[in-house]
């Protein structure tokens, strides 16, 4: 064993010596390796991680949805203010497969806030005309969005998810929610913008029908700073589509926004002050357009509708439910529905058209407290006193739309409102005032077409040509000079002393006659008078003879004057020469020159006789005188009777002169032209006057056709 103990010194043995190993006299814990710290640390870390993940896994809540599209267990997240606050762990069904239930693990920091008013909805990508919402979900998949108030409340672990995002989808929005009511919801879709002065300030929810099915109700949400303008006096109107206004300024096309064009939109404005604050339960009407909304400001919110009906004869084509009812141009109501009913018996049966309408009592100016009965009473008064009638009138000449107009016709036959009529009191009607623009425009065109425009133009051209030719004719230029000469001569004749003396003489005779008659009244002899009258008769015969020529002259002058006045240029020119000659001849004749002295002598003789009579004064002669006076008077009247003959003669003379003149002028180029010109002028004048007459007869016919 020594070799063994020496170790390597003798390694020749088969079995090497065993190494001396002293057993370690140490405790077991002293033999523990420090390496054991590693698994311990690993265990601690693992346990720590496990604990942490267990403690931090959050609360499990269940959210039920009608439709689980896009929900993927382990992948769909729950977001609050776009931050992940949870993860869908399970997607299953509620009992009876009625709903999809998503088990969502919500982080601990938001779990306390999930109380009863928490709302959840699924955000999916949505493409609409207003843009694409939820674009991030296209890539990441749908997620559940949540919204709750920042106050911790009684924890709830089961929620019912919303089918669509709530209106105030941004948590913390403190806007105002109101309800809008429309008659027609097809212009508006969920999410449509609410505009205020063109700015989008809110949006609307899903349209739904009211309980009675007559109206469409839409929840509207108006964001915070803008809801301050909301009062009960606020008016909402439909801003959908576009406004096409045809006015004096041309055609105006007003498109609010592409979104509102397609998706619809609602504008609002507070048009008058004095409204009270709105509450969640406030319901607003949505008017068809801004103009209507503004008109409605004058109506009171609580005015009571007054239902009336009217029966119209003929077609009501163009009248529709919703058509205006106007009174003096102000819209006071609208047509609610149209219908027909059969009236009468047997042969008299006929179909009549019944129009039901609704009047707003507030529009009639009765004040806020007025009831429908008051309004009906007022209308009844109008109908019986002022002749208020309903009639159809054209609302738009372009569309042919009609409206019901309440007009006052004081001359109308008396009528009253038929209170017994069913279903509503019936207003008396009057003839419609319908303008059919198509027929009218057709008529206007036809009338314009029928105008003899071309003939008129031809005539006018001819006239102008003729006038031109006439004006340049030397004959015509000579006429004025000769006419002036004629007038001068005429004036000389009239102003001659002899002629001027005649009236004085006649006056003297008249005075003498009066004196004689005064004497006669005093009872003087009739015989003298008879003799005197006989003499006077003789004298007067002379006067008549003398004056026989005189009327010829004066009549001729007058005739000539008239002729000159009434004379067409034709006659004037032609007659000038003849007139001058005749007048010269007359004035220059001896008869004419002799006339005044003869007349004077006759009158002097009469005067002498009368003077004698005045001096003689025998009553016995009175009878004779009277009969003589009678005879004288007869003679005078005889002489007077011959005056028409004279006049005839004169006319004949003039006619003869004219014949002569026309004979003289027949070949004259001047005359021919003149006649032709005048004829054409007359034709032209006829055309113009015919047109003028047509237009004058009814000025509006050209435009209105009626």
């Amino acid at each position: 064993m020594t070799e063994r103990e020496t170790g390597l010194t003798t390694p020749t043995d088969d079995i090497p010596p065993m190494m001396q190993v002293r057993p370690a006299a140490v405790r077991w814990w002293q033999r523990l390796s420090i390496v054991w710290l590693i698994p311990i640390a690993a265990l601690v870390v693992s346990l720590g991680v496990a604990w942490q993940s267990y403690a931090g896994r959050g609360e499990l809540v269940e959210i039920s949805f009608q439709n689980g599209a896009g929900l993927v267990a382990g992948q769909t997240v729950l977001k609050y203010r776009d931050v992940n606050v949870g993860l869908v762990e399970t997607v299953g069904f509620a009992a009876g497969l009625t709903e999809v239930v998503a088990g969502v693990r919500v982080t601990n920091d938001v779990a306390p806030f999930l109380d009863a008013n928490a709302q959840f909805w699924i955000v999916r990508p949505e493409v609409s005309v207003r843009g694409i919402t939820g674009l991030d979900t296209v890539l990441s998949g749908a997620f559940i969005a949540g919204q709750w108030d920042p106050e911790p409340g009684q924890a709830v672990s089961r929620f019912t998810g919303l089918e669509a995002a709530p209106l105030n989808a941004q948590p913390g929005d403190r806007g105002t929610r109101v309800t809008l009511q429309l008659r027609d919801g097809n212009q508006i879709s969920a999410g449509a913008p609410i505009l205020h002065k063109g700015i989008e300030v809110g949006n609307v929810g899903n349209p739904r029908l009211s309980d009675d099915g007559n109206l469409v109700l839409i929840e509207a949400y108006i964001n915070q700073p803008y809801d301050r303008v909301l009062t009960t006096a606020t008016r909402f109107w439909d801003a959908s589509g576009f406004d096409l206004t045809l006015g004096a300024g041309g055609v105006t096309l007003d498109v609010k926004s592409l979104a509102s064009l397609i998706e619809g939109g609602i504008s609002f404005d507070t048009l008058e002050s004095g409204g009270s604050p709105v509450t969640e339960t406030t319901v607003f009407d949505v008017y068809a357009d801004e103009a209507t909304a503004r008109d409605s400001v004058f109506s009171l919110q609580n005015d009571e509708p007054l239902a009336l009906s009217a029966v119209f004869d003929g077609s009501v084509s163009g009248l529709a439910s919703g058509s205006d009812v106007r009174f003096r141009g102000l819209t006071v109501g609208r047509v609610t529905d149209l219908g027909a009913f059969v009236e009468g018996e047997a042969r008299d049966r006929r179909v009549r058209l019944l129009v039901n309408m609704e009047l707003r009592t507030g529009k009639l100016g009765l004040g806020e407290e007025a009831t429908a009965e008051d309004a009906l009473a007022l209308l009844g008064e109008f109908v019986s006193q002022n002749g208020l009638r309903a009639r159809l009138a054209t609302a738009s000449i372009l569309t042919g739309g009609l409206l019901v107009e309440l007009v006052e016709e004081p001359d109308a036959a008396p009528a009253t409102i038929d209170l017994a009529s069913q279903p509503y009191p019936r207003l008396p009607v009057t003839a419609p005032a319908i303008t059919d623009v198509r027929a009218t425009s057709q008529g206007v065109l036809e009338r314009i077409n029928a105008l003899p425009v071309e003939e008129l133009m031809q005539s006018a051209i001819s006239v102008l040509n003729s006038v031109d030719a006439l004006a340049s004719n030397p004959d015509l230029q000579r006429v004025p000079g000769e006419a002036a000469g004629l007038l001068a001569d005429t004036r000389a004749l009239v102003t001659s002393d002899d002629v001027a003396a005649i009236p004085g003489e006649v006056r003297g005779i008249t005075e003498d006659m009066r004196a004689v008659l005064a004497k006669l009244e005093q009872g003087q002899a009739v015989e003298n008078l008879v003799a005197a009258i006989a003499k006077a008769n003789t004298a007067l015969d002379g006067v008549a003879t003398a004056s026989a020529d005189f009327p010829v002259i004066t009549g001729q002058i007058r005739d000539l004057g008239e002729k000159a006045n009434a004379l067409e240029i034709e006659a004037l020119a032609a007659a000038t020469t003849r007139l001058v000659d005749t007048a010269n001849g007359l004035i220059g004749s001896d008869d004419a020159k002799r006339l005044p002295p003869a007349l004077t002598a006759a009158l002097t003789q009469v005067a002498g006789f009368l003077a004698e009579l005045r001096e003689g004064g025998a009553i016995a002669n009175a009878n004779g005188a009277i009969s003589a006076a009678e005879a004288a008077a007869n003679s005078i009247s005889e002489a007077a009777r011959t005056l028409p003959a004279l006049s005839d003669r004169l006319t004949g003379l003039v006619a003869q002169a004219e014949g002569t003149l026309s004979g003289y002028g027949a070949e004259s180029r001047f005359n021919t032209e003149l006649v032709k010109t005048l004829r054409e002028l007359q034709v032209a004048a006829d055309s113009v006057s015919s047109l003028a007459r047509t237009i004058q007869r009814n000025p509006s016919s050209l435009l209105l056709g009626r």
Partner: protein
Amino acid sequence: MTISARQAGLVGCLRCGRVHLPDVALCTRCGAALSSRDPNGLQRVWAWWLAGLLVYIPANLYPMLLTRTLTQRTESTIIGGAVELFQHGDAGIALIVFVASVVIPVGKFIAIAFLAMSLEKRHLMTEHAQHRLFAVVEFIGRWSMIDVFVVAILASLVRFDAVATINPGIAAVSFALSVAFTMQAAQSFDPRTIWDD
């Protein structure tokens, strides 16, 4: 008849294999510390083994890869990833992943535990079989890191911001630790003890 160095009263260097007299503290050739048998060797094997096993649990429970693409965001665990690959039809790759990530580490745990136990219960295996097993374990240990490499390369290469991003999950760290711990366990094993009676 073979004898061990210990039986010959000598001490062999574990690093370079030179045999020294027992009183030599450091290898005269390579300078490594010499010890005939590590008294705490088995203890350290078990400690590393346990640590490796502990961290291997989260490595399988937690996601290995966080893949974020335009359309989705997926987290895949080791086994989940392998199954997914298999479902996509990449059976070969799925097999590689499965072998590298599951079969080999689990086999290593079993092998190390078996070796450690067989030192006390000699009848389980012959010394040669034990030694071969140890060699295989030590050799194969580094290849277990293939998963971690894949994750590291993917995470560094696939960084297209929004389009696609891959991030290592917590399991990658656990798995790397597990591999490291088991390698350490294998390293702690003193193969000379196989031959001790």
